[in-house]
């Protein structure tokens, strides 16, 4: 539950419960199992559920209870990016967990002993003290050392915020055009916050298709065409898109940011806390215009 496994920089989810809980958040994804080549049958396909990059980013930014689990390649990148400080902190975290387990065990022990005393059993004071040697606490020893970069031994640490930050940065850096990806994401997030469910939109010649509710219950309303960095859109494309959209009872929407995103500035701005930085971008306005055929001419 709550794990978002990555495979080749793409969210690939096999766990049905996770798929279900994501759906409740309005994250639809698309099923790609079994017959990935005959995608016209995509209503009949099975797991894994592939997430759009925007969906993956949306879940990690807005729902911190979900966390990215890297694949082997991504893990190597993660390990390479960790400093001694990070490693130290992660080991401390493991230690803390052990201590917590110890503490619970000690409380249980003390409660048990004082119960025995109240029941009239005579117990010397020395026996009231919790002794780890007599009452051992479970401590897992891994088969491989966590000094060696091995994904198995790291499984327990992926949900830590520091690790998540690094993984998220890796994901962002894997995008061929980060500025476009972020524009797409901000449009996605704008639509999502307006209650729309979003799927990929290539079928209708856009980037996204937006539904007023779950795609299994509604027909889509909007075909979304992003406009990047204040670029101009050809009127021919508007006529094309508008006519097609109207023919299939939809609206052709062009969407973009009013503030230009500065790509070069990203590296440093993203670095300390990519989630907060992305959230701050979301506060900026997304401009949308909807096009329809006017019914004459």
């Amino acid at each position, binding site marked *: 539950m709550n794990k978002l496994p990555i495979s080749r920089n793409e969210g690939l989810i096999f766990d049905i419960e996770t798929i279900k809980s994501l759906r409740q958040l309005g994250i639809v994804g698309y099923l790609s199992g079994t017959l990935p080549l005959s995608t016209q049958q995509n209503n009949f396909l099975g797991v894994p559920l592939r997430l759009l990059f925007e969906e993956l980013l949306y879940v990690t930014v807005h729902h911190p209870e979900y966390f990215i689990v890297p694949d082997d390649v991504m893990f190597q990148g993660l390990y390479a990016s960790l400093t001694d400080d990070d490693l130290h902190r992660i080991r401390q975290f493991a230690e803390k967990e052990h201590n917590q387990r110890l503490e619970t065990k000690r409380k249980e022990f003390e409660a048990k002993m004082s119960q025995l005393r109240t029941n009239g059993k005579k117990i010397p004071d020395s026996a009231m003290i919790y002794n780890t040697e007599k009452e051992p606490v479970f401590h897992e020893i891994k088969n491989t050392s966590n000094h060696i970069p091995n994904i198995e031994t790291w499984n327990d640490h992926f949900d830590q915020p520091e690790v998540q930050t690094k993984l998220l940065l890796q994901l962002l850096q894997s995008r061929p055009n980060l500025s476009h990806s972020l524009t797409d994401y901000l449009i996605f997030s704008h*639509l999502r916050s*307006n209650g*729309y469910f979003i799927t990929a939109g290539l079928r209708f010649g856009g980037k996204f298709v937006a539904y*007023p509710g779950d795609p299994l219950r509604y027909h889509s*309303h*909007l075909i979304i065409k992003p*406009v990047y960095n*204040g*670029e*101009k*859109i*050809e*009127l*021919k494309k*508007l*006529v094309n898109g*508008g006519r097609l*959209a*109207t023919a299939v*009872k*939809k*609206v052709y*929407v*062009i969407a*973009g940011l*009013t503030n230009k995103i500065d790509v070069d500035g990203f590296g440093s701005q993203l670095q300390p806390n990519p989630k907060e930085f992305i959230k701050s971008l979301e506060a900026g306005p997304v*401009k*949308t*215009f*909807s*096009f*329809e*055929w*006017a*019914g*004459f*001419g």
Partner: protein
Amino acid sequence: MSLLDVVQTNLEQFHFWTHVKVLDDFVIQGYPQESLTKNTSQDALEFVYPAHISQKLSLSDIDGIFKKLDELLGVRPKRIVMGIVTDDGSVVYYFAHEGLIKPSKV
């Protein structure tokens, strides 16, 4: 003939709009023969922005059209009509709404 003239003539002669006139040399206003959508009243004044098919518009260009109409009319319209002209003389008309809308029911 300028784009304004082409669209004005098309509206008057082909679609039988009435009281058609050019506003501030950039947009055409007039009354269609029948209301353009189910939700607009019969006597609603429509505004048509003429453009050539080869033109390119940015989001802020389109925003500018709304802004200028706002200045001229004192209210920002929710939607305008774009009259797109081709070289063969045909004119096609598209609604441009600000923001996200539901598809109109036909």
